[in-house]
């Protein structure tokens, strides 16, 4: 942080490398093209450099950077005439169960809501299979199919290790929204891994 404020280029580029891919994806949620998203990211970094001297550290650095980014992205999106409803980036089924209802017994059964067939125990799987490149490819591919806000919450939390609080503040989400998005995203990735390991 001090190196950054002193104008250390390596410190800046290190931060750029670490946060850049996420920033690009987040910007892209609000604007019309990849090229515009790139511009938004550049503007955000410029804003970061300009504001660095006044950064008081009341939030984490990366939260502060993302707030700058999201503000610029939303403003740019509005200028493009785009007003993105939350459902468009978060998914429009957030009030639906994240789990496939057919996994459970229906109301006509003896035990409604209980498992209709037991989920498979992955602990019986060979470790090499679970962590194989193919499984990782399935996970990566599933992330690409998620609504972008679900994917990003999942990446920040489970791939990059951000805290829930940082994610909420960075992406301007309520606690409830962030939890629901994370749950849905994890459920979909879990389902994809399950299907893959069963095949």
């Amino acid at each position, binding site marked *: 942080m001090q190196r950054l404020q002193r104008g250390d*280029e390596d410190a800046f580029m290190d931060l750029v*490398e670490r946060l850049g891919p996420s920033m690009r994806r987040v910007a892209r949620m609000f604007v019309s093209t990849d090229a515009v998203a*790139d511009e938004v990211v550049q503007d955000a970094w410029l804003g970061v450099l300009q504001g660095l001297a006044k950064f008081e550290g009341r939030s984490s650095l990366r939260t502060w950077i993302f707030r700058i980014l999201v503000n610029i992205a939303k403003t740019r999106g509005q200028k493009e005439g785009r007003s993105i409803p939350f459902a468009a980036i978060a998914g429009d089924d957030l009030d639906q169960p994240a789990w496939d209802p057919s996994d*459970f017994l229906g109301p006509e059964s003896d035990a409604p809501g*209980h498992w209709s067939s037991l989920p498979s125990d992955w602990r019986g799987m060979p470790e090499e299979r*679970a962590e194989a490149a193919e499984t990782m490819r399935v*996970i990566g591919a599933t*992330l690409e199919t998620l609504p972008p806000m679900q994917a990003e919450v999942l990446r920040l939390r489970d791939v990059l290790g951000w805290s829930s609080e940082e994610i909420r503040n960075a992406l301007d989400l309520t606690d409830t929204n962030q939890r629901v998005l994370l749950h849905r995203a994890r459920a979909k990735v879990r389902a994809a891994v399950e299907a893959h390991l069963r095949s």
Partner: protein
Amino acid sequence: MACRDIVEMISDYLDQALPAGERAHVQIHLATCDGCETVLEQVRETVHLLGKLDEERLTEVQREILRAVFHHHVLG
């Protein structure tokens, strides 16, 4: 609560984000339900695998543009 309801809480349970009462409820259910216990382990393993995912890298072009932004700011 049935399994169908418990699994909708499983992510929050894993992250210790449930209020104490709900947490206890899930814990009691898990103690006697193999299916839901298995699901908890699946979600735990899913999170573990996600942690091994490679993050995207910036392209050379993106990197050098941002380096130029830095230089311009420092010089300007």
